[in-house]
């Protein structure tokens, strides 16, 4: 079974902090994705990656950066967290279909 894991299920951070969200997949997928999910807005793509060290902006990259140093790991970085980044963050990897991680619910206070 494909497994996508995320480093935290719940996270509370203060405004201005640098935040790292980690995602690891165990199926050697080349493509990995970071989404945020907010009520009524569905899944919005932040960044995605085709391969190690490769990244592409999604629809809402502002305020975020990513890192993909190893194939299995894709990190989302909030350089200076703000309250409007309070959200559910979902990581996914894919070959045929997308496999999602359990999500990290981030609260920025």
């Amino acid at each position: 079974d494909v497994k996508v894991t995320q480093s935290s299920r719940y996270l509370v951070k203060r405004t201005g902090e640098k935040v790292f969200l980690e995602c690891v997949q165990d199926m050697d997928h080349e493509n990995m994705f970071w989404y945020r999910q907010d009520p009524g807005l569905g899944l919005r793509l932040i960044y995605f990656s085709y391969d190690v060290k490769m990244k592409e902006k999604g629809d809402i990259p502002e305020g975020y950066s990513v890192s993909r140093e190893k194939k299995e790991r894709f990190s989302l970085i909030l350089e200076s967290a703000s309250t409007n980044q309070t959200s559910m963050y979902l990581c996914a990897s894919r070959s045929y279909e997308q496999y999602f991680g359990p999500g990290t619910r981030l609260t920025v206070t």
Partner: protein
Amino acid sequence: GQQVMQIPQYQHVQEGEDFTTYCNSSTTLSNIQWYKQRPGGHPVFLIQLVKSGEVKKQKRLTFQFGEAKKNSSLHITATQTTDVGTYFCAGHDRGSTLGRLYFGRGTQLTVWP
């Protein structure tokens, strides 16, 4: 840019009633995928349709891909409480099966017992 619209946003039905959610793309898609997200869970892949006019069934669920490959629907016959959740459609741009999926905003289904 590419947009995938999904309606309705919410649907409340009584158990036993049918349910349909519709998905429309601004451009031709190479395929359409459907996902289900249970309350408190993460999206889980249900099915992929690739061919123009394709219809696939999974028990009480019927999935259709339009002839022009720009729209799709998911129909659930005789809903059950286990069908509760949000259903998302998602597609790849024509000519691309790699890379990003374009997701609709989802239809949240509530089923009254």
